[in-house]
């Protein structure tokens, strides 16, 4: 009997510190979970409010814009119908302008990939002497703010007679996106052994064969990452498109959108509907290539 009482008397005393620690740990975990939940809610509100506003305004019925509510009383998708059918005079060339945006973005992507991969092939794979000069020039371009060069660039393009020509915008975006491509290709190319090139060289392959048959196929992941980046850069660019493209036939969707701002009584619901349609391709592209892009963007983020 005595042993049993001793056991029961001893057990809580021994278990108490352990239990208390466990309870404290549980409470701490609970608090961090609550904290994480609150933070998530704040982040959701922070992120989604401006996007919610775009959607809300685009669903306003005509004439209802900016009344005193948080969701339109007579929500209607009419504005999307108007945009798709080009039923408003700011939007009469909508699909043509959308085509201009697509054309500029595809040409930019193609050129950035071509020029970037050729440069990094020459500097990193063929190891041309003094290739670092090119790398440094590219780095310098990367850190010049594009808006600081806009004025001379505009005047030069006028002198070349390229005003209202999509190629002036393509040239500008390629100029500012290629340096980034060169860095990523160089960084990624380090993981491909140089011996591959060497053995192909001994077997008599010409540089152009090595470029097409060895370098490009092995670089596909980096090409996808940079291609996505270039596509989004072209789609996001506004200043150069606004300066260089001014007639309705040659302008792109962002420039057409900004036209709405010139008028005081513009139908904001049409504008926001246009904005949503314009924003869908980059969002889709981003989500499709999300993983490759973030790994490409941040390759070798830090070296511990």
């Amino acid at each position, binding site marked *: 009997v005595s042993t049993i009482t001793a056991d029961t008397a001893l057990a809580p005393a021994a278990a108490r510190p352990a239990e208390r620690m466990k309870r404290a740990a549980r409470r701490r975990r609970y608090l961090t979970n609550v904290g994480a939940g609150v933070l998530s809610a704040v982040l959701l509100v922070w*992120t989604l409010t401006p996007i919610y506003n775009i959607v809300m305004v685009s669903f306003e019925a005509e004439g209802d814009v900016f009344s005193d509510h948080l969701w339109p009383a007579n929500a209607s998708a009419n504005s999307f119908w108007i945009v798709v059918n080009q039923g408003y005079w700011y939007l009469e060339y909508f699909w043509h302008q959308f085509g201009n945006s697509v054309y500029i973005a595809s040409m930019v992507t193609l050129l950035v990939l071509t020029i970037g991969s050729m440069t990094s092939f020459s500097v990193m794979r063929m190891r041309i002497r003094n290739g670092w000069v090119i790398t440094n*020039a590219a780095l310098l371009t990367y850190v010049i703010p594009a808006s600081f060069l806009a004025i001379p660039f505009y005047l030069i393009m006028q002198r070349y007679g390229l005003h209202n020509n999509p190629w002036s915008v393509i040239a500008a975006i390629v100029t500012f996106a290629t340096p980034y491509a060169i860095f990523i290709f160089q960084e990624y190319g380090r993981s491909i052994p140089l011996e591959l090139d060497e053995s192909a060289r001994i077997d008599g392959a010409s540089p152009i064969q090595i470029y097409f048959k060895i370098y490009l196929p092995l670089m596909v992941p980096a090409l996808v990452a940079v291609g996505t980046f270039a596509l989004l850069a072209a789609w996001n660019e506004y200043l150069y498109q606004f300066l260089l493209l001014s007639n309705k036939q040659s302008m792109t969707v962002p420039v057409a959108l900004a036209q709405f701002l010139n008028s005081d009584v513009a139908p904001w619901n049409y504008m926001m509907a246009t904005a949503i349609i314009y*924003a869908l391709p980059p969002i889709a592209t981003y989500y499709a290539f*999300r993983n490759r892009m*973030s790994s490409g963007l941040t390759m070798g*983020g*830090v070296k511990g």
Partner: protein
Amino acid sequence: MTTASAIEFGGPAVRRQSLWRYWRGGLRGSEFTWALAFLVPYIGVFVAFVAYPVFYGLWMGSKPSLYTEVFSDPIYQQTVVNTIVFVAFGVNLKLFFALMLSGFFMRPGWWVKGLLMIFVLPWAVPALPAFISIHWMLNGEWGLLNNALYHLLGLDGPSWLNSRWLALGSAIYSHVWKWLPFWTVILLAGRMSIPQEIYDAAKVDGATGLRRFAHVSFPLLANLYLVLTLLATIFLLGDFNSVYFVTGGGPANSTHLLATLGIRNAFDLANPRLGVAVVMSALPLLIPLVIILMRRIKNAEVQL
């Protein structure tokens, strides 16, 4: 064979050949020609669209009398203050929150991953519709923000865009909103590249929570953080879209940044030289930043 024939022809030929060999590096036969040919596109882009505009801009802004005109402009004086405030708050808020949030997004669990996918949305949405949406959201009379304040809290919000400091704050807010995901993703990749063993070792030594951050994560991220600060400063100096669309430089031209004031002088006032002079006045700040950054990037091998 080649060296023997060079010796026969005497000194100058030897020197010429060794110079030639120096330039060719380890490349044989036609390979050097190919390596050069691969560089031609980028060199072309650099000369035509970087070097030429830069020198053209320097030439345009080379008259000292331009600067007395610029410096005596009261709008310019306000703009300099705005730019400093914008950079100081914009860069530090953005990077501090990005550093904290990247730690949050390291947490395990499906819903943190899902939240990250929503959180990166502002980065994927094109700048122009997002900023125009924020512009309308902040409208004092009908904007979503003041409607929400009124309906949820019964408060009458201020007219955000009608006073200089509130408007500048709104521009900083929209810049942070748009670019926070980008820097968070970069810092997240930086954190992910820290080997797990280091954390395990820290755990054995009893470092958790804040202490682990102060003694393990942050020292390893410090160099990356510094590079990102420099880069964010340069990017922010060149930011055009957030101020142009959210405040439009108003009220009464009191919230311009150097980039937007330059474009205004060049195009709205039709005085390109004055615009270039405004932008050039940022060079004494920009050039040291670029030099420090280029050294840092090379040492740290940070890729963005």
